[in-house]
């Protein structure tokens, strides 16, 4: 123990500038974070620009600190004085880990606790989650940096090694585009993570025990090759079929998907090609029936298989989708992309199509009704939100993790809420405005700040359910919040029969046949028609506000500062760093 502390003390004495730098950045981050919650702007543009880089600078300072402290007793080369001194390698390693623990983990942990306290979240109950975050940080950021520092003999070499690793990651990410299925299954990612972790641990131990830099670098190189091999050779189809098995009587597909042959995009309109990409995005309409009120599901991924006229098969492979479907929905438009050149070759041919859907099924569970009142709203699941009247959304905060799964439906009131900048002439679908986050993962998010920020924004589908628009939340909005429970994953297989792909290429302007009935502005369409947004702005006297200070005067017509001040019923506002007294005219 004494040797550990002795080396540790030496490192602290030597690396105090790096320690001070990393602590200063951490403190700056802790001071800066609460400002980002309220969205207060910073007048000084340079400072604002600099603060935007704060998280990156923190990571760099930690990386620099870890590399420097490890390389205080460099493990590469044969001329280091300490190699022929009575250093015991486990104690040397422990001294370095103690340093990293105190000046990275403990410092960050204290900052996180203070942020939780400032944000008025329970501190003690958050500690297990924070410990989980730190174990993840140790297994990723710290371990990888430690391994990198162990196989390099200076900051220059470490930067070069980092560049090699970075380029490898870019290469792997580029190659992973060739294997779209790899995004769907977590198993391959878990294997990769385990492999990287094992390799990092092996490199650290080999270097501290044997100082064989060449062997360690070969291990890293072999790991990169192995990751590539896993990516190329993984049996994705099998893994996804295992993760999303076929329906059984106990785990049925929660709805019946029927391909809607009656809908297609209008021929003769200009097809909506992406001029910058080499892919086209096709949309296939399905009718949904039989979804119970208590069930909500997520379409996690989908796959399109075609039998071409030539007899050869084609598959899109599994593609991530992430669409949530709840009671009231009657349609689902599934999207799939394919190469433009391939599409052009077969677009008008009759092809036999088959779609596979991977679904995560949830039960909605008991609901809580909350009415948005004032500035601050508490959400079940331990989150609280600020009513951002300028954006008509709830800006929410939670400790460690966004409450998930979460499902919110809203019966929007006929109030000032109905004021919207967006107008429409389409009917709304029957399903109410909603917001859903469906995730099976209940682990805390591995980020530096323990305060997770997320936005609750309501949206509602139009009658054909191919598009949805955002709808406002404001004072008086009733939100029905439930925390669904994951039940099971299941796969559905749907035969589309013979189709011409051209019919499912969206057009610009978007025109679906048979055509929709245009809606007269202001006409209610259903029981939730308060959601309907009139095309014309409300008439009546304009509401203006005027702020004055020292004889100077600024005015606004419900715009910018004035609008925000009005929403908060404020008589004093800060404009360009100075306080102004205000007065209101109109109603």
């Amino acid at each position: 123990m004494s040797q550990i502390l002795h080396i540790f003390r030496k490192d602290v004495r030597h690396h105090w500038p790096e320690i001070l730098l990393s602590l200063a950045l951490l403190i700056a981050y802790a001071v800066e974070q609460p400002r980002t919650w309220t969205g207060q702007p910073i007048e000084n543009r340079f400072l604002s620009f600099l603060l935007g880089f704060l998280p990156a600078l923190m990571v760099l300072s930690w990386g620099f600190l870890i590399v420097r402290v490890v390389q205080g007793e460099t493990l590469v080369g044969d001329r280091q004085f300490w190699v022929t001194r009575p250093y015991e390698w486990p104690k040397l390693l422990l001294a370095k880990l103690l340093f990293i623990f105190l000046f990275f983990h403990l410092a960050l942990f204290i900052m996180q606790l203070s942020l939780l306290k400032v944000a008025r979240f329970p501190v003690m109950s958050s500690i297990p989650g924070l410990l989980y975050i730190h174990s993840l940080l140790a297994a990723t950021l710290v371990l990888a940096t430690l391994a990198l520092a162990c196989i390099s003999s200076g900051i220059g070499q470490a930067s070069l090694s980092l560049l090699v690793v970075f380029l490898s990651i870019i290469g792997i990410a580029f190659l992973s585009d060739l294997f779209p299925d790899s995004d769907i299954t977590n198993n391959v990612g878990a294997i990769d993570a385990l492999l990287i972790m094992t390799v990092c641990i092996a490199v650290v131990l080999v270097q501290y025990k044997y100082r064989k830099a060449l062997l360690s670098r070969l291990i890293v190189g072999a790991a990169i090759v192995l990751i590539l091999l896993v990516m190329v050779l993984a049996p994705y189809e099998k893994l996804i079929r295992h993760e999303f098995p076929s329906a059984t009587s106990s785990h049925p597909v929660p709805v019946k998907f029927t391909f809607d042959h009656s809908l297609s995009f209008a021929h003769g309109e200009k097809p909506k090609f992406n001029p910058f990409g080499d892919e086209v995005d096709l949309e296939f309409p399905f009718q949904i029936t039989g979804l119970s009120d208590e069930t909500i599901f997520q379409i996690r991924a989908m796959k399109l298989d075609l039998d071409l006229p030539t007899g050869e098969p084609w598959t899109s492979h599994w593609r991530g989708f992430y669409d949530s479907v709840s009671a009231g929905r009657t349609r689902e438009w599934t999207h799939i992309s394919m190469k433009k050149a391939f599409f052009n070759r077969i677009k008008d041919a009759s092809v036999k199509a088959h779609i596979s859907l991977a679904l995560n099924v949830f039960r909605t569970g008991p609901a809580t009704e909350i009415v948005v009142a004032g500035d601050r709203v508490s959400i079940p699941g331990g989150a609280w939100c600020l009513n951002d009247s300028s954006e008509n959304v709830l800006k929410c905060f939670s400790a460690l993790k966004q409450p998930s799964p979460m499902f919110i439906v809203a019966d929007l009131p006929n109030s000032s809420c109905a004021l919207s900048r967006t107008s429409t002439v389409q009917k709304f679908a029957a399903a109410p405005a909603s917001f859903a986050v469906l995730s099976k993962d209940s682990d805390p998010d591995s980020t530096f700040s323990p305060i997770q920020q997320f936005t609750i924004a309501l949206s509602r589908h139009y009658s054909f359910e191919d598009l949805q628009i955002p709808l406002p939340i404001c004072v008086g909005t009733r939100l029905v919040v439930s925390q669904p429970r994951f039940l099971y994953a299941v796969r559905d297989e749907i035969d589309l029969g013979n189709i011409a792909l051209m019919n499912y290429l969206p057009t610009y302007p978007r025109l679906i046949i048979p055509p929709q009935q245009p809606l007269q502005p202001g006409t209610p369409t259903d029981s939730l028609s308060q959601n309907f947004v009139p095309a014309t702005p409300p008439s009546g006297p304009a509401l203006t506000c005027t702020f004055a200070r020292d004889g100077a005067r600024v005015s606004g017509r419900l715009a910018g500062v004035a609008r925000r001040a009005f929403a908060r019923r404020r008589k004093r506002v800060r404009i360009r760093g100075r306080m102004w007294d205000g007065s209101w005219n109109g109603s």
Partner: protein
Amino acid sequence: MLCIQTQALTKRFGRVHALDGLDFSVPQGAIQALVGPNGAGKTTLIKILMNIFRASTGTASVLGVDSRKISGKAFSSIGYVSENQHLPPWMRVGAFLEYLRPFYPTWDMQLEAQLVQKFDLPLDRKLKHLSRGMRMKAALASALAFRPKLIVLDEPFSGLDPMVRDELGSALLERAKEATIFLSSHDLAEVEGFATHVAFLDSGRLRLAEEMSSLSARFREVELAFDAPVAVPATLPANWLQFSASDSTIRFVDDAFNEETLRAEISGHFGPVRSATFTPMTLRTIFLALAKSSRKPS
């Protein structure tokens, strides 16, 4: 008791044989000099002994411990100094000695103070600001202050001025009473002053290893003068190195000198000699003779 022992020690760097089947030992209490030209394998041998390099084949032991297991506490009794060792540049000399103290249970503060005084070490100066000689002295002080059983020095005098060499040499001699010293050098004159044993390494092979006294006794420069030119026989004794004959004079180096035997051999090969001189050789001339000779010494 042997302090260092190697058996069939080989080290390859790719196709290069840095050490080639080395059998070598250093007795306890000796001041063993390992000499040889640049690239002979001296540093490689020392680095294998210090477990900095791994041998390709063969074994080596230091203080009775397999060199592959020399690490950590084993260095509590080994003081190692190398000409190109990297000391922590940011540390001051005093802080460096202070930092190393707790690593050694046998660290002698009094001896440390003596060494600091003897070497005139500036304790408040950073190691990176020291001259090469001063840095070597600081390294040597840190390697001697814990009274190691074995002191291993790799080219300790290389590039140092005579005054510093003298200071280092005398400090080593003071420690020789209680430690075995193993040092490599290509400066033969320096080694000759205080080494008790010497080994000659050339192209990874041990050409010679013996006590200095026996080596000095064994080698003689021989000069023979005759009244008239003599015929040189086709075969000469294997222990006659660098044989040359001009007019009525013959010169060679005898590496197994015994005056009685040599006189008999000379008489047998050349007949009566007008004069014969047998000059003792310096270490430098012995090794030059060995290096230049293609014949293996006996």
